């Protein structure tokens, strides 16, 4: 469920759609927008932006949550200035083109004709000089903390250039085509998958297994089992096997959902399965240690929660460690879950056994310690 929710929010296949507030000051005395400013807004809306028009007098939009507020202001006189500028540009192009042709033709054009052309060009240039035209500046307003503001300015500039070309009745001679190949780039959802699997196995061990063991002890079920020929090692291993099967089923379901919905890059291999088993052994062992060490079920649940929740949020399982301050990154590296999700990510997503070796070894040591501690602390006599 978490994978679906977070994957959809952060890692889905749909391209991002940016909200852009537009304040159009290019209106006539009756408040009707200029033809070209209206067309420009339409062009923006047909790009990556979702345009929200601000009427004169509307308050500055308020930010809710993490959505950045960006306001583009189209100045007064945008349409008239753009028409003039287009005419000027067309005149410049025409005059320059004719002069280039005259130059290229050389002696083929008689001197009288050449003089007549020059005189005409001077007349046209005189007309061009009478046209009031200058650079129109659109204002893009946004937060200094908005890291996407600069790229957005670039997108708006590109749209403006294309718009100007269209007004000149010219077509773009440089085009970019996107071609998809089969190489896979890791996306957010690829990052989340091993983190969620590891976090689930960790919480299941520290909270689920510890509560189960504590409840079985409180209800006398462990005593009942201890009165049979079953040994405490057998009992511990039976819980470990159940948890391992549950973990492998979880991994399969998450990979299946992730692949079907998000086309995630995860490809389970023998190494990732070994890491899953080691992680399950470690956290099941730790959970059993908590369950058999504390007398009250409430204390067991409290300890399980107080260990697992900080680990879930601080170990980098749910978001990249690089987003966290350096001192918290150091804290994360002290947490068992960090090594588990790192090893799982390296094997399952990156497919790098080499980089997975160190964290896998740490998880292996934790697994051995967890299971040995669980067996030795489980009382099978003199409860």
């Amino acid at each position, binding site marked *: 469920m978490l994978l679906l929710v977070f994957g959809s929010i952060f890692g889905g296949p749909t391209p991002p759609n940016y909200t852009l507030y537009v304040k159009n000051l290019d209106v006539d005395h009756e408040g009707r927008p200029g033809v070209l400013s209206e067309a420009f807004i339409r062009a923006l809306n047909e790009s990556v932006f979702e345009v929200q028009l601000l009427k004169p007098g509307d308050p500055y939009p308020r930010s809710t949550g993490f959505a950045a507020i960006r306001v583009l202001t189209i100045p007064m006189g945008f349409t008239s200035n753009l028409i003039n500028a287009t005419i000027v540009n067309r005149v410049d192009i025409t005059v320059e083109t004719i002069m280039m042709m005259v130059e290229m033709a050389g002696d083929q054009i008689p001197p009288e004709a050449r003089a007549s052309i020059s005189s005409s060009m001077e007349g046209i240039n005189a007309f061009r000089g009478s046209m009031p035209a200058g650079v129109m500046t659109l204002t893009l307003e946004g937060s200094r903390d908005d890291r996407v503001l600069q790229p957005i300015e670039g997108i708006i500039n590109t749209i403006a250039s294309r718009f100007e070309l269209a007004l000149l009745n010219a077509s773009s001679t440089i085009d970019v085509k996107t071609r998809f190949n089969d190489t896979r780039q890791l996306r957010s959802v690829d990052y989340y998958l091993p983190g969620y699997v590891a976090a689930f196995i960790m919480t299941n061990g520290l909270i689920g297994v510890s509560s189960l063991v504590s409840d*079985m002890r409180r*209800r*006398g*079920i462990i*005593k*009942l*089992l*201890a*009165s*049979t*020929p*079953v*040994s405490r090692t057998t009992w511990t291993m039976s819980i470990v096997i159940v948890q391992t099967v549950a973990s492998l089923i979880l991994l399969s379901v998450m990979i299946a959902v992730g692949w079907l919905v998000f086309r995630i890059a995860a490809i389970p291999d023998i190494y990732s399965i070994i890491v899953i088993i080691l992680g399950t052994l470690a956290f099941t062992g730790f959970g059993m240690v908590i369950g058999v060490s504390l007398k009250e079920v409430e204390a067991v649940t409290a300890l399980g929660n107080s260990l697992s929740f900080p680990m879930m949020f601080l170990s980098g399982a749910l978001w990249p460690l690089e987003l966290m301050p350096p001192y918290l990154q150091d804290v994360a590296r002290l947490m068992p879950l960090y090594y588990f999700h790192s090893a799982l990510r390296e094997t399952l997503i990156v497919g790098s056994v080499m980089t997975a070796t160190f964290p896998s070894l740490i998880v292996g040591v934790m697994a051995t310690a967890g299971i040995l501690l669980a067996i030795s602390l489980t009382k099978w*006599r*003199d*409860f």
Partner: protein
Amino acid sequence: MNEIIVVDKLTKKYGDFLAVNNVSFIVKQGEVFSLLGPNGAGKTTIVEILECLRTPTSGVALIKGMNVKDPSEVKRIKRLIGVLPQEFNAIDNLTVYENVELAASAKGSRNVKDILEALGLWEMRKSAFSKLSGGLKRRVGIAMALVGDPEIVFLDEPTTGLDPEARRETWSYIRKLKKSGVTIFLTTHYMEEAERLSDRVAIIVRGRIAAEGDVRRLVSEQGGKTRLIFEDLGERAAEALRGKGYEVEPITDDRTVVKVSDKSEVFEVLSILRGLSIDAYPEIHHPGLEDVFLRIVGSKISERGELI
């Protein structure tokens, strides 16, 4: 009969608290042996020592000659026994069948269906354990104790907390079990339960055995006389009975008890009263374990198991 359990000078201390104090008894194969005593007398401690769940501080406890303290014998002992612990619980989310199957697999046995049928649980084998009544839950506990065909079954307070109907039902299953030849070691604080079910009983108070032996013999030797309780007997009749050597004691203003040794004396007492033109129909109270307990310990045990 062979001795299947031998307990000799068994002592168990929890810190400074002496829970079991120099206890000795034997249990014979095929009998129902009861440890009768109030709460905190040390019954469960003794049972758990015999189940290899507790280590005795000193003394010896042998199951079929194997010492419960010897780690090399523990697994063999556990294969011989079935256990219904005090305040029995099984796994709530599992069905009746699954719980009994769990116990069967723990003992390496497969006779789940036979046991469920014998205990009348087959029809409800798919019911979740959590949905069962207290009596049925206890019956599932007996089934879990019986899988694996144990030679000795320990039933620790098997009817505590059950309503009278469920209690009688449980007794009938214990009687059936007795007929199958299994040795039953029962702990209880219910006098009636011990008396109805046991061949032999050991009365335990504050960690010590106060009396032990065949139930009928204990009652006949220590239970005192049969009591005839009359309403409005009158002083003239009382004097006449005293004159014939009977113990006559007023209990309340209008109730009088006359103690007799056997049935023939009952008829003699009635005949004496008829001779005085008194037609009396007494309540007859035969002596039981409660009387034995009262006589030996000087107290009674309440319904909740406390010494009063």
